């Protein structure tokens, strides 16, 4: 018995050193040498300033300023509105504002919940209000699901191609660009399926918006 206890104690310490220190440090060392960009989170810079990560979604919104000159708040969170010259990310339900990448969270909206239905209806209405002025033939039936449902991580960096093509009408109009030019940018920043069959094609929103800014100088 005593012998077993001694062995167990030594074993747990030895394994903790090997698997808890040596192994992660080894992987970190090799990764930092072989894939430094990936290991550090695929950071994107504009003029030397960190604007985000290629694979972490961010909101393209701005706080709504109330009559008192301060940002409006609702249920302890700052109310925001889309900045219309940018492609918009999917709805996000992280706490402390959308796309809180320091605290990822599921929305936990159940399939038969009234709350889910309300949130979905609200998102659908907002999407139509934003896009319909620029795409008059748009109807609720054409709105892709990813545009109104929150994602798993609530940090989804991507949107579907149909979602992007609808938004292209608005972005092209506000930036005075031909629709075809915006569509070709969408195609450029679309990643295909894994190995050609797994998952779905998806458009990288941040990279797409940065490319647009380079094309038309950040302003409308």
């Amino acid at each position, binding site marked *: 018995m005593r012998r077993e206890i001694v062995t167990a104690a030594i074993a747990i310490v030895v394994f903790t050193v090997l698997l808890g220190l040596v192994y992660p440090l080894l992987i970190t060392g090799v990764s930092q040498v072989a894939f430094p960009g990936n290991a550090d989170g695929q950071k994107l810079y504009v003029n030397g300033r960190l604007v985000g990560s290629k694979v972490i979604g961010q909101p393209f919104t701005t706080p709504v300023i109330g009559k008192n000159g301060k940002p409006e708040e609702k249920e302890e969170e700052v109310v925001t509105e889309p900045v219309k010259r940018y492609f918009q990310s999917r709805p996000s339900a992280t706490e402390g504002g959308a796309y809180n990448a320091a605290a990822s969270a599921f*929305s936990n909206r159940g399939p038969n919940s009234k709350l889910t239905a309300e949130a979905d209806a609200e998102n659908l209405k907002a999407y139509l209000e934003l896009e319909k002025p620029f795409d008059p033939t748009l109807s609720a039936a054409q709105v892709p699901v990813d545009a109104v449902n929150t994602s*798993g991580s609530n940090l989804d960096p991507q949107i579907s191609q149909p979602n992007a093509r609808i938004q292209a009408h608005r972005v092209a109009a506000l930036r005075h660009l031909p629709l075809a030019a915006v569509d070709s940018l969408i195609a450029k920043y679309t990643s295909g399926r894994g190995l050609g069959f797994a998952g779905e094609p*998806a458009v990288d929103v941040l990279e797409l918006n940065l490319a647009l800014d380079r094309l038309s100088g950040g302003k409308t």
Partner: protein
Amino acid sequence: MTFTGWLTIVLFAVALTALALPLGGYMAKVYTGQRVLLSTLFAGPERFLYKLLRVDTNREQDWKAYAKSLIIFSLAGWLLLYLILRTQNAFYVPHALNPLDFKSGTWNLTFNTTSSFVTNTNWQYYGGETTLSYLSQMIGLTVQNWLSAGVGIVVAVALVRGIIGRSGKSLGNFWQDLVRTVLYVLTPISVLGALVLVSQGVIQNFSHYLTAHTVTGLTQSIAMGPVASQEVIKELGTNGGGFFNVNSAHPFENPTAFTNLFEMLLVLIIPAALVFMYGRMTGNRRQGYAIYGVMMFMFLAAAAVAYIAEAHGSPAQHAAGIHTHVLGGSVGGNMEGKEQRFGIAASALFDTVTTVTSCGAVNSAIESFTGIGGAVPMANLSASEVIFGGVGTGLYSMLLYVLLAVFIGGLMVGRTPEWLGKKIEAREIKLAGLGVLITPLAALFCTAMATATKAGRASISEVAGVKTPQGFSESFYAYLSQANNNGSAFAGYTGYIQPNAGNAGAHGVTFADLLGGFDMLVARYLPILFVLAVAGALAGKRFTPAGLGTMRTDNPTFAVLLIGVVVLVGALTFFPALLLGPIVQGLTGHLY
């Protein structure tokens, strides 16, 4: 539903089988002490470890000695992990390894988390990036991801040795099996796998959380960490505890549809390979193929149901006027809680993969699955993790069912049941019966406690002050998942309260934390003891060659019988509970 969606499921099954076959052969060699290619590299370190641990590998252990070593080792791991998590902001923790100065968890939360990782469950009453330091994730959780997986695998190996043992009572040596599992099985796949993951975009660093200034002038804080090294063993060891709160839905854990595929393979590769290993070690590969067929059949059925249900969309979506059919390049379906890069099929498949096994990682929110879609993970758990199951636990639990099936088959044809040359007698059947029933009993007992007591009801979510069928699903799932050492969740169930999102210590809900911890410990270690006892009982039996009247256990007839036994036990135990939650929701368009 789309063609590529179905193709994903089929190609995944093919790739899994193609990879698991050779790995099974390799593992059979490892556990029968034959030389393998990696021996050149690892034989030296292996001998050194035995010396360091003071292990005499010539000393074989009977089932009691084997169980004793296992329990003492697990207890040592439990104590160390508890200590690490309770002192994560102590003076000796360098700031660089706890950059946000997270405080230690409270005793009740830590009891739950410690029990969770030592039992290979990885149930998480905490959000990784808002609660745990890099050091805790590395030397605490990652280490147990390896070791709890190792413990599961060696129990399966010991059971197989008991079944094929021709003399004496030895089941091998626990320490030797553990060291060999870590060195020869887990290490090569983990090191290579981690690098593959980083090459695709999984992060691996010790940076402070990033502060980005977004395109529209907002500030975004982005969590960092040594993710890849933990991610790979989280999948490979069917542990499932995410580095981040949203687990494999997080783009830093699972950045592309390819990594998604790769991670699913990591989850199933060892459970599948163990079945082939069993076939090899018994000297009749068809024994393995029969069980593999049973598992694959049930797995594909589950994946198909989940895919169809999720592609259909949810009542809430339809009530909101959203169109959920495939349309002009949009996949449609229930995208609530799902990432665009995975879509419906790869999300449904991933969550099926991780709930048939005891992994419990998720790449999409199970809470947001449709009624029937969410019933699939629940049904997978109700089958007591025998559809591939956890590393080791899957094979040993399934072998208990095989024992029961042989017994029932024997009764049906009126002969003394025999299995691989061993007579099955009352003692083995009693032990196997108990081993099979512990997990469901623990799950149902805890669910009853959680829904019938005042303290338990505090954890159940409400809609406008009213409990709903979804609330029952959450509670049932919580204890079913913890009993099966799975760890996936209907995440609306509350086991901890985090006052400030972002950066503050959580405090636990004592009732839920303790009940869950009890659930996990009981349902992990009691079945292990019964399995080892069965192995001991079988090892001591005389071998009699199969005769003409022996019921075969390697043909389709037996496979069908085995499916029947698994489904019957699972259905009889859990059907009433399933009716109350997911099936009610699946059959109605009513909103609650």
